[in-house]
C-alpha cells in the first residue's frame, strides 16, 4: 500500500525527516509515537502533499505510484486521507455541501454517477450515527464553532464517508473524552478490513488499547528508531523516550 524509502524531507527548507523507512501493507494499522516536534505531523503532511513540505531525497510510493510531484487532491482521489491534528475552520462553507462535493469529486474521478442531495443525506445520516454526531453539525460551516472533540469526530465522519484506502490519523485521540474515544475507535475498527490501511499518530497508549495496532514505531529526530508490537507502546508509556536515543 504505502512504501517510504530513506525519506529525507522538510518544511520551508528545514530538514525534519532524516532517512525514514516505513512499509504499510493492506489491512495493517501502524501506530507512530514520538516526542513533540519529532516530525510526526511532518510525515503526515508529506504523505498528503501539503505545500511548503518538500522531499529532499528518498521515495514515497502509494500502490506503486510515486507520490512526489502529485497534487494533494490527486492523492486524495487515489485514496489517501488525513484526519488533521488541527482541523481548520472554513467560514461560510457549509459542511454538508463540502462533504458531498468531496464525495462527488471522487465518484467522478472513478467514472461513477454523482450522488444527489437526497441520497447523500441518507448516506450521511448513517455515518453520523457511527460517530454519534448530531445532525445540526451538518448545517454549520466546516468546523465552525465545533469544540475540539467535535472537530475530531467530524474528521472521522469525513473518513467514513470518503472511504479512503489509507487513513492517517494525526492525534485524532487528543482532546477526545473517554466516551468519544471509544466511539471513534469503534468507528475506525468497524471500518477496518483487509484492504484498508491506517497510520495512527498518537501520544497515548490508551488509543492503542482500543485499536489493536499491528506495529508500533518510535520516531525520534525524523527517523524511526525502533519498531515493535503493542508492548513497545507500553514500555514508552512507562519509561519515556530517552532510553531510545542513541
Amino acid at each position, binding site marked *: 500500500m504505502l512504501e517510504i524509502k530513506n525519506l529525507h524531507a522538510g518544511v520551508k527548507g528545514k530538514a525534519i525527516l532524516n532517512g525514514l523507512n516505513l512499509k504499510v501493507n493492506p489491512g495493517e494499522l501502524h501506530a507512530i509515537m514520538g516526542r513533540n516536534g519529532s516530525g510526526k505531523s511532518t510525515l503526515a503532511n508529506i504523505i*498528503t*502533499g*501539503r*505545500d511548503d513540505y518538500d522531499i529532499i531525497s528518498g521515495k514515497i510510493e502509494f500502490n506503486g505510484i510515486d507520490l512526489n510531484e502529485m*497534487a*494533494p*487532491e490527486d*492523492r*486524495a*482521489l487515489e485514496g489517501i*486521507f*488525513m484526519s*488533521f491534528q488541527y*482541523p*481548520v*475552520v*472554513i*467560514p*461560510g*462553507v457549509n459542511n454538508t*455541501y*463540502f*462533504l458531498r*462535493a*468531496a464525495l462527488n*469529486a*471522487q465518484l467522478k*474521478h472513478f467514472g461513477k454517477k454523482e450522488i444527489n442531495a437526497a441520497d447523500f443525506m441518507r448516506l450521511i445520516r448513517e455515518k453520523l450515527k457511527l460517530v454519534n454526531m448530531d445532525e445540526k453539525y451538518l448545517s454549520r*460551516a*466546516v468546523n465552525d464553532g465545533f469544540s475540539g472533540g467535535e472537530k475530531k469526530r467530524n474528521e472521522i465522519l*469525513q473518513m467514513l464517508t*470518503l472511504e479512503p484506502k489509507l487513513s492517517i490519523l494525526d492525534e485524532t485521540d487528543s482532546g477526545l473524552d473517554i466516551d468519544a474515544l471509544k466511539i471513534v475507535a469503534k468507528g475506525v475498527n468497524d471500518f477496518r478490513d483487509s484492504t484498508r490501511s491506517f497510520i495512527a499518530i498518537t501520544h497515548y497508549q490508551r488509543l492503542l488499547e482500543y485499536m489493536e495496532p499491528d506495529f508500533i514505531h518510535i520516531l525520534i529526530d525524523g527517523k524511526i528508531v525502533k519498531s515493535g508490537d503493542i508492548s513497545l507502546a507500553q514500555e514508552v508509556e512507562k519509561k519515556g523516550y530517552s532510553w531510545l536515543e542513541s
Partner: protein
Amino acid sequence: MKYFRDEFDSFLDLNKDENDTLIKLRKKSFENFMETGLPTSKWEDWQFTNFSSLNAGDFRLSSANDVIKPPGIVPGQIPHSHLLLIINGHYQPGLSKLPKNVTISSGADHYFSHPEFYSHKNMESKWSKGLNPFYSLNTSMMNSGICVQVEENTVLSNPIQIIYLTTAIQNEIMNHPRFVFELGNNSKATFVEHYIGSTSIGYFNNCVTLVELGQNSFMDHIRIQEETSGSHHVANSFYGLSQGSTLNVNNTSIGSSLYRHNINLKFCDANSSANYNALSLVDNEQHHDQRIIVEHSSDSCQSNQLFKYILSDESSGVFNGKVIVEEHTRQTDANQSNKNLVLSPSALMNANPQLEIYAEDVKCSHGSTTGQIDPEALFYLKSRGLSHKKSMELIMNGFISDISELVNDKHISEYLNKIASQQLQKIMK
C-alpha cells in the same frame, strides 16, 4: 471638462420649455459644479480615486438618437418582479403593470409635485455631509430616472425592479439619472435598482437615488451594479429613515472600471434600524471606491454595515466608512465591519473605518481586515479530493455567503448568487 459646459448648454437649449424654477436650479447646480470641478486627489475623502478619465473624456448627454426598442429578453430581469425599464436614459413605458397603491412619475412631473426633494436648500440642510460635485452635476442635467411612491399601509408581495440598461450606443454617452423611492407609513416593499451595461463603447452614469422610509415601514433595497468594464459609474445614495422603520440593503457591484459610490444614511427619528451589506468583486484594473456615512441623529436606532471586497489582478478597492453618533442621542447600537480578500499581489485595498461619537449611551463596534486565501483552508479542501479551482470557489463563496443574508426574496437571492459566482469564476481565472 469642456464637454460638460457644451452638453449643459445644449441641454438647456433643448429644454427651453422647462419651468423657470427648475431651470434656475439646474443653472445654480451647474455653477456649483463648475466652481469646484471634479474632485481631485487633494480632496479629503476622495484621495484614492482618480477622475482624470472623466476630465479627459468626451461624453455626450444621451439624446433621442439613443432611443432604441427594448430587447425581446431584457437582461437581468428577475422573475416575479414588476419591471420598470430605462434604456440609455429613456423610460420604456407600458412594459409591466404596477400593483395598486404604487405610482410612478418621471423627472419634471415629480419635480413639480415634490420640489422638496430637489431644492438645494432642503438637500443642504438634511444632507450637508453628502453633497458633492457629482450631486450638483446630476441636478444640473438630470435627464432620466423615475420616482416610485408606495402609499401608506401597502404591502407589496412582489419586488419592483428598475433596470437601467445601457446598450447599443453609437458613441460615448453620459446620463444623470435621478431616482426617488418613497415608502409610505406602515408599508412594506422591495426595490431593485439595477444597472446593466451591454456595449463595448464607454459611457458614464452619474446617479442620484433618494430613498425615504415612512413610519414603521419596511424596505428591502437591492442595488446591483453590472455596468460594462469600460464604463464609469458614480452614484450618490441617500436614505432617510422615519420612526420605527427598517431598511435592509444589499449592494452588489461587479462592473465598471471606475466606480465611486457615496452612501448617506440618516436616522431622522427614533427606533429605526438599518442593515447595509455590500459586496464588490473586481478584477483587471477595476477600481471600486465606496464611502458610507451613517448618521445616528435619533434615539434607539441600530445600524449594521458589512462591506466585503474580493480583489484580483491589478484591481483596487476603497472603503471609507463613517458612523456619526450625534450629541444627546441615546441607546445607539452601531456596527461596522469591512472584510477584504486580496487574490493577487498587485491588487490593492484601502480601508478606513471611522467612528465619531459625541454621545455617551452608545454600543459601537467597527473593524476592517484584509487578507489572502487561507492556505490551511485551501489545503484542507484539496486533501479531501477537491480541485484547486473548486477549493478556491468554495472558500470565496464561503467568504461572501453572509452578504446575501439580508435578501428576503428568493428570486433575487438566486439572481445575486448567480452573478456573484459567475464573477468569481471570472476573477479567479
